[in-house]
């Protein structure tokens, strides 16, 4: 019996099912099947993939699983986790990071062209500009200058030009 992996990578669901027997793991991905040996070893996990042994560091966080191998770290978010979703809907401008709103250039009702500045956020002493992804109208502004915002907070709602 296989089960869904139930993880997201870079905001998108990982389409895969997996099945494990002892240390043997079989993962069915969209276009291929992976067979691996997965063995716990202290805080690490030893994964034998295509005949090659790979030692990975592993940790479970509140929002997902972190896996590191030779300096490259992958974050696999639980599908059940909310909040850290990046702005997916084109009409929703969300905070790409935790920080402070230093400038709100958009106002409700205003027409915007692609690339027009909407909001500037400051974090770690750097400024980041959020621009309109397409032509449209600002339906709602949900933040004000000086607000502290969390990753994923909704800042501006856009209505695409019809």
């Amino acid at each position, binding site marked *: *019996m296989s*089960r*869904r*992996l*139930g*993880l997201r*990578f870079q905001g998108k669901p*990982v389409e*895969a099912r*997996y099945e*494990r027997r002892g240390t043997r*793991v079989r*993962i069915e*991905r969209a276009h291929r099947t*992976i067979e*691996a040996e*997965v063995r*716990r070893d202290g805080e690490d*996990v030893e*994964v034998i*993939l295509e005949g090659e042994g*790979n030692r*990975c*560091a*592993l*940790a*479970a*966080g*509140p929002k997902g*699983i*972190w*896996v*590191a*191998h*030779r*300096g*490259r*770290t*992958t*974050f*696999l978010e*639980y*599908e*059940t986790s909310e909040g850290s979703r990046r702005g997916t809907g084109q009409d929703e401008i969300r905070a*790409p*990071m*935790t*920080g*402070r709103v*230093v*400038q709100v250039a958009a106002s409700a009702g205003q027409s915007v062209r692609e690339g027009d*500045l909407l909001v*500037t956020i400051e*974090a*770690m*002493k*750097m*400024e*980041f500009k959020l621009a309109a992804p397409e032509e449209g109208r600002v339906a709602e502004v949900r933040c004000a200058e000086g607000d502290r915002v969390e*990753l994923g907070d909704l800042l501006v709602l856009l209505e695409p030009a019809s």
Partner: protein
Amino acid sequence: MKRRSRAARAVRAFQKILVANRGEIAVRVCRTLRAMKIPSVAVYSEADRGAPHVRAADEAVAIGPAPPAQSYLDMDAILGAARRAGADGIHPGYGFLSENAAFARRCSEAGVVFIGPSADSMAQLGDKAAARRTAAECRVPLVPGAEDVAGADRARKEAARIGYPVLLKAAGGGGGRGMRLVRDPEEMDAAFDAARREAGAAFGDDRLLLERYVHPARHVEVQILADGEDAIALGERECSLQRRHQKLIEESPSVAIGAKTRSAMQDAAASLARAAGYAGAMTAEFLLGPEERFYFLEVNTRLQVEHPVTEMRSGVDLVRAQIAVAAGESAADSLGAQAPPRVTGHAIEARLLAEDAYHGYLPQTGRILRLDWPEGEGLRIDAGVEAGMTITSHYDSLLAKVIAFGESRESARRRLVEALRATVLLGVVTNQAFLIDLLEGEDFRTGETFTHTVESRAWEGPLEAPDLALAAATAILDRPRTAAGDEEERDRYSPWQRLGPWGRA
């Protein structure tokens, strides 16, 4: 690598030193204070209660809420902490108040030694407009530019005279904050406003200056140690690999200059220090254009983030030297037995940052779940973080510096790549893999490193989750979980169930 023979008088000059900083630099300064047997005092904001730098010091004083303006930039709070703790010296580290002449002045008024240059030499060299005048007097070559540009209209007029593209820069501080590239007159208004706001926020001083943009250029800087009269050059560092004008990789020596240019650059840097009667550690930054032509960029009147590169090659402890000079020793004496010291081999530093290099260098926050540093010969880790610590958006994104030394550039590079591969930091997205990409890339291997190299191409991480990561993750997924997709019968007898601390926090 550390020298042991030091004049005892410097060590006795300070009773107690307060470190007015946080993160890796505060930890690093405390390490030297401990080696010198000078009691250390840390300061911390509410967000940094229990941070590594607090424990690195002998005692610690709370100075206010998390926002820097109410804590690490609050002169009254820091001077108050020094008074309460009975500190007679303040080491400012880098950033925060390290280049603030008003703070240096207030320290001396309060009878506390500011471990850095005098307020006057700071004003003369730390202020970019004043530094350009000093450089001109010293016949150090300058990039064409304009000082103290009052508004966007004035900036446009000056830019038309100098020629686009131009750079807008903060007059009151370094580190790329308040800096903007302007390619044509239309971009000026927005760039001017942004640069002014960023400069004001970072340095409490929103004056701007304008310069021609030299291209292609490398960033090469000279480390100086001076005592008010004498100035000793400790070699150069090349820091061309940058993003958003923030350095990522620094190395010494620079592969781009010969002995003649090196010597001319060191003389230029030393002449600036002497002209300002500078005492302490100082860095003169230069733009290196084609044909080894160099132009004065700015002076940093403080310890640099990348100072370990120089320490690895020279064996000098620059913090110790700063403290010795502040105690009245000569620069030559502060360096110990041999001055100038022999500078050998090759050192490379990589800055490990909490940012997503593959997605617009977005800053990242979160709690560090696991952290393992490698150890090895020729390897140095300057870290300000530890497992369990939460990285917030209040402070800059530098988590740690990984520095490798080797007899040759290639051996240092290999050592650094291996160290980054062996480093494990889970819980916060970092630029670790990106640093490996840079160090393994053709540009770095061949020494073709320019200030535009990093940003001239798009860097991509994996487009889909790696097979290896998914396979490894199944080790945790087997734990009993609820509400995770189509839950099926649990593998109750699997050893996986009974092993390990893999609980979701």
